[in-house]
């Protein structure tokens, strides 16, 4: 029995997020094999072997993102390849699919794992964030079959093998009853849940017309932009940038919060970030308590200077 990792290429290539999953799968598998199923075509699929895949499979028919279709493809592949554990990325589509896969396989599910599961006394224990980042829970999955979804940025891909050949796997792709009529994506920047660097603005910006100050900083850092909830509510920024308890939960390496007070509901979505920088003119702003670094000052003066300094650093590097 093996572990099956589901990886989706991005525009024909597998990126860091995919390699990360392969490493996660290999570390979860222990003595067992780590098989990776690439759903879609990727020119660099064989490289998954470098990061932990013992065998790499691809299916040539790419299913649309309908959880009914996707879950059938994954469950069938898992049975064909005799796998006891299925690992899926914890993004919007992965979360919609994993619950269905779990029911099809009779498996227990733990979603949004943030570190590699541990085998303790014959049990697989999985840790994940709960209470919107305010705590962690460790679960044992008590069924023979297991499904785990994994948050982006949970571990770093590790080189632990060599490139391998890619085998094709025949699976039935049933027709979908859902038609995708439009897609609207913000191009250029990494999606928030996967972003390593995030700059975020709050009501301190006073209005949408001032956002170029934050966007310049984001450009200098090559960071993704986020915002507090009132900012999205007021339509200053698109709603999918809203982070926090009722928005997206993120855990980048660096979160720079500008003109955000640090309400508990906002912190809930960002407090697992590795490094937090707060820029706020109010020294009493609660966000400073959750920060690693801070500047007490007027964002309209501090942020442009910060952008300049970062450009200098990058130019020197």
């Amino acid at each position, binding site marked *: 029995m093996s572990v099956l990792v589901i990886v989706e290429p991005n525009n024909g290539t597998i990126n860091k997020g995919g390699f990360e999953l392969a490493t996660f799968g290999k570390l979860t598998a222990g003595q067992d094999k780590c098989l990776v199923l690439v759903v879609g075509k990727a020119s660099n699929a064989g490289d998954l072997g470098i990061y932990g895949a013992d065998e790499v499979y691809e299916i040539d028919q790419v299913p649309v993102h*309908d*959880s*009914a279709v996707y879950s059938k493809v994954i469950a069938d592949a898992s049975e064909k390849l005799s796998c006891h554990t299925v690992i899926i990325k914890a993004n*919007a589509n992965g979360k*919609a699919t994993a*619950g*269905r896969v*779990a*029911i*099809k396989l009779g498996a*227990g*599910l733990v*979603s*949004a794992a943030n570190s590699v599961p541990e085998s303790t006394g014959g049990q697989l224990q999985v840790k994940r964030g*709960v*209470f*919107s980042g*305010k*705590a962690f*829970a*460790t*679960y044992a*999955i*008590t069924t023979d079959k297991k499904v785990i979804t994994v948050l982006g940025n949970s571990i770093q891909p590790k080189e632990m093998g060599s490139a391998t050949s890619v085998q094709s796997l025949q699976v039935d792709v049933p027709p979908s009853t*859902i*038609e*995708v*009529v*439009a*897609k*609207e*994506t*913000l191009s250029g*920047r*990494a999606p*928030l*849940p*996967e972003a390593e*660097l995030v700059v975020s603005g709050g009501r301190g910006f006073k209005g949408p017309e001032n956002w170029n100050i934050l966007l310049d900083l984001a450009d200098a*850092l090559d960071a993704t932009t986020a915002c507090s909830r009132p900012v999205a509510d007021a339509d200053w920024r698109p*709603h*999918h940038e809203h982070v926090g*308890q*009722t928005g997206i939960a993120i855990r980048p390496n660096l979160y720079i919060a500008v003109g955000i007070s640090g309400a508990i*509901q906002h912190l809930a979505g960002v407090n*697992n970030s590795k*490094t937090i*920088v707060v820029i706020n003119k109010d020294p009493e702003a609660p966000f400073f308590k959750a*920060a*690693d*670094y*801070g*500047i007490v000052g007027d964002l309209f*003066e*501090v942020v442009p200077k*910060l952008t300049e*300094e*970062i450009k*200098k*650093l990058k130019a020197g590097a």
Partner: protein
Amino acid sequence: MKTLVCISKTPDTTSKISFSSDGKNFNTDGISFIMNPYDEWYALVRAVELKEKLGGTVTVINVGDASNDIVIRKALAIGADDAIRVDANPIDSFFVASQIAAVAKDKSYDIIFLGKETIDYNGAEVGAMLAEMLDLPYVSFANKLEVDGDAKTIRREIEGGTETLKLSGPCVISAAKDMAQQRIPNMQGILMSKRKPLEVVTPVGASSRIEVIKHDLPPAKKGVTLVDAGNVAELVRLLHEEAKVI
């Protein structure tokens, strides 16, 4: 339109989180509970709006004990017509989905609504499991829904954007922000909610598939290093050399 809205109870968003000394159980002392915001603000309100526009009924369902009745009454005050409570401790998402599926299976609801996720366990698991058990299409994280006869046009959140889907016939939808606007129950709603039917049913057999080993709180922050506003270069140096994040 006949809809079912799955509602859950969660700690108030400002709650201080703590656990029993063995780490197994969430400490509920001094915690006030609310209806899960996604369920209340978005799923329930959209279901009530559709009923107001197209006619039909809205039923709410909760898996939980009698202490949840207060949350269920609030849903009735917001505009649901009747309620079902499956009288059981919601041990895990598989158990909850099994209970809701057992109630819903012969009732031919046009839409079963859930919230995007519960803000305590943040699983976003129940919807997909329920859809699979009932063999229905599932659209997660929907932030816009229009119904035209049998056809549904749904916009959903995906990483870094949205996608718009069309489907027809019954389906399961999990609701995210923007699907509707929060409604505060009015006096008449509150009075009427007391007379609306709340049926308590016994659970079907379903075992849990996961077991809690422990909970931990995140390690305390070491405290903030403040940098003078006139010395922004120092912040960049710290981020580069000390934190090594840029």
